[in-house]
């Protein structure tokens, strides 16, 4: 099967590349081995939260220019411009966000930390400056028996910043039903029950009974899998200011992003190979001609250009065995730390872990290498790129989207 471009990987990075290419009129295929880590996303996108000294970043654009030479952002021609493009890509997919690349705001993490971030989905709880909390009295309103919203941690995090917090809960007969299978009281199942049964007005009533006297109500993000319509609706129906905080996985705002991005890609005519895996590349000299997948035996997927966006260790974009780290789909070169496994990690898990900075080798145009030779038409994007620690830097979504858009620019040149 022939396409203009084939994207390997269906997460934030792969979908961003796929959409941008399809918007430019290319015939694009995307091969995705299962669903992506967007399902663990917190409803915000980080560009750069902490610099290399570990200080909170107020202006990501300034801080990016001071990063070391290995960081993937160093291969992006104009970070500011592509950050604007990324926001527009999301917007056209139906994902409205607030935030600017030259000016971080702070999001509330599911366990009560305030973290610097770039874009937040509408309705998510954010503050302009974590130093001066705008809320005096907060009601944390959970659904009774919902365990993936750790209210004690959340309350403690907010109280540490001088906010008065009360933990409350409500329920409805329809929501109580979910406990019939105790393991299935999950954010996404709650969202499905709320949407199928049109519970917005009832929930608003329950919350309004609790909300009097508070200047902010924080709710678990358990609404709006397919669009933000219901989540927006509920906030409007609550008489005091109210926002959502992402839950532990699966994350409803994350699933919504995945769903809307995929929909956008398909609506633009993109072809999605679901639940399949690239297992081999056909290389001719310094060119990748086609890829084979696990399920399309007998068919090679061919294209002029390829984007490898399969993620890091967690998504199996990189695999470690006892002796080395490798890239399993195409066998491209990996920036390895050598044979001594002991150097890959530090015993204290809170320390910066060296393996986190491993990734595929690329040239200045994000092109991959194989046995030391640059492959002219194979670009890498997203978490599979090494040279940074996304947990320590809080730069994961920015790297995913901006390197994808840069790879697209390089392809379209």
């Amino acid at each position, binding site marked *: 099967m022939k396409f203009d471009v084939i994207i390997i990987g269906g997460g934030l990075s792969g979908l961003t590349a796929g959409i941008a290419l399809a918007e430019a009129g290319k015939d694009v295929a995307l091969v995705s081995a299962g669903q992506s880590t967007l399902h663990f996303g917190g409803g915000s996108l980080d560009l750069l939260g902490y610099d290399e000294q570990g200080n909170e970043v107020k202006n990501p654009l300034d801080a990016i220019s001071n990063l070391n030479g290995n960081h993937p952002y160093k291969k992006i021609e104009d970070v500011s411009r592509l950050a604007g493009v990324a926001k527009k890509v999301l917007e056209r997919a139906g994902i409205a966000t607030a935030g600017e690349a030259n000016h971080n705001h702070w999001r509330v993490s599911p366990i009560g930390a305030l973290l610097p971030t770039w874009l937040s989905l509408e309705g998510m709880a954010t503050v302009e400056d974590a130093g001066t909390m705008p809320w005096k009295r907060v009601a944390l309103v959970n659904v009774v028996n919902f365990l993936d919203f750790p209210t004690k941690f959340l309350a403690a995090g907010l109280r540490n910043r001088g906010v008065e917090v009360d933990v409350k809960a409500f329920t409805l007969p329809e929501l109580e039903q979910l406990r019939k299978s105790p393991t299935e009281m999950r954010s996404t199942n709650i969202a499905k029950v709320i949407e199928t049964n049109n519970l917005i007005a009832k929930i608003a009533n329950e919350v309004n009974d609790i909300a009097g006297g508070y200047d902010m109500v924080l709710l678990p993000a358990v609404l709006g899998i397919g669009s933000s319509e219901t989540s927006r609706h509920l906030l409007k129906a609550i008489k005091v200011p109210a926002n959502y905080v992402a839950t532990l996985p699966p994350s409803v705002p994350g699933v919504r992003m995945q769903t809307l991005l995929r929909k956008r890609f398909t609506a633009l005519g993109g*072809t999605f190979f679901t639940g399949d895996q690239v297992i081999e590349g056909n290389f001719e000299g310094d060119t990748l001609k086609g890829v084979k997948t696990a399920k399309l035996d007998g068919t090679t997927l061919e294209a002029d250009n390829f984007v490898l966006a399969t993620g890091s260790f967690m998504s199996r974009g990189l695999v470690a065995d006892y002796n080395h780290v490798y890239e399993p789909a195409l066998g491209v070169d990996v920036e390895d730390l050598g044979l001594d496994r002991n150097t890959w990690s530090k015993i204290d898990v809170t320390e910066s872990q060296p393996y986190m900075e491993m990734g595929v080798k690329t040239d200045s145009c994000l092109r991959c290498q194989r046995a030391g030779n640059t492959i002219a038409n194979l670009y890498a994007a997203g978490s599979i790129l090494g040279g940074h620690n996304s947990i320590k830097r809080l730069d994961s979504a920015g790297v995913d989207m901006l390197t994808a858009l840069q790879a697209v620019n390089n392809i379209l040149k």
Partner: protein
Amino acid sequence: MATETQTQNVSVNNFEQCLKCSICTVYCPVSAVTPLYPGPKQAGPDGERYRLKDKVFFDESLKMCLNCKRCEVACPNDVHIGDIIQAARIKYSTHKPSLRDMMLANTDLVGTMASPFAPIANPVLKLKPMKAVLHSVMGIDKHRTFPDYSNRKFESWFKKEAAPNQDQYSKHVSYFHGCYVNYNYPQLGKDMVKVMNAVGYGVHLLEKEKCCGVALIANGMSKQAKRQGEVNMSSMRKAIVEGHVVLTSSSTCTFTMRDEYDHLLGIDNHDVRDSISLATRFLFQLIEKGEIKLEFRKDFHKRVAYHSACHMERMGWVPYSTRLLRMIPGLEFVMLESQCCGISGTYGFKKENYERSQAIGKGLFDQINDVAPDCVATDCETCKWQIEMSTGVPVMNPISIIAEALDVEATIISNKK
């Protein structure tokens, strides 16, 4: 030694690869509509940990699983969640199939009995009193109408009308038509013969064909499914020796014979599997290689919305059918968002499942009504019943759409060159 241990440590159905990430639970069509089903993670790898210790942890609620495999498609770690659940049902369930279940599962037997009486059976099965009896006595939901039985089986038509002409072709395929084509909708089989002949392929039936067994597996009759599967494999081996590819026009039959035979029934199909293909995939591959060419009528116009049947999605073959359909110049193509229609073969026919079945499909029906296509295209026959009943929009197999759009004369000329 360490490397050996690491590479060889692969558990059955990749059970130990489960990271507990919970992504599968987002995509389960059953737990989306009922709190009584424990969901793929709990019913699958989580529950399996307990069942391995003691079978008392087996839970009959696992029979609510549709076996749609959407959990497997979603799993980022290739855990065969659906297989774990179905294998547990086969291994531990003590539930005995009822008369109703046996009747629904034996599509072959019931079809053979009903076909000669089709002119009587079809209207009678549509009568309200008959439906009431089926509902209360048999447990077959009153909202359902059995697909019409054809008075003349596809096999009978083929032997008389088509078989004598097939030897004039230099290339040949074998066709596994399945129960639906044979007893209910011979037209699809006729369309298949029309398209294959037009591109220069003679069509043959297998020496002996049995129902693929998908409904038997679903209804707890895996031993019978295995016996039937062995018959199919042995017939297919003979066809393969003659150099034939075995084609089907049903995604579910294909998936069952390629994957479920080995994974669930323990049938050794390794020498046959790669020769079983779906007709749309076969055509697409030949067109791509430049070996055949399809010519289409200039006056064909249709707005077609494609529905990805669950097992088609699991096989990863959706793009074969969609890219083939998109070759038709007069076809306006709309891709529906992939989700289960809720029928799952015989599942939706059972009165205890009816409401759940319709709730599962609701999102799909709404989408179809919004798109308002001339027809829906899908590779699965039971999706066809469900979508037609629930939306009123006609549903066609891609092969029938090709047959309708085909300029037969021009195609024959193009393929003789």
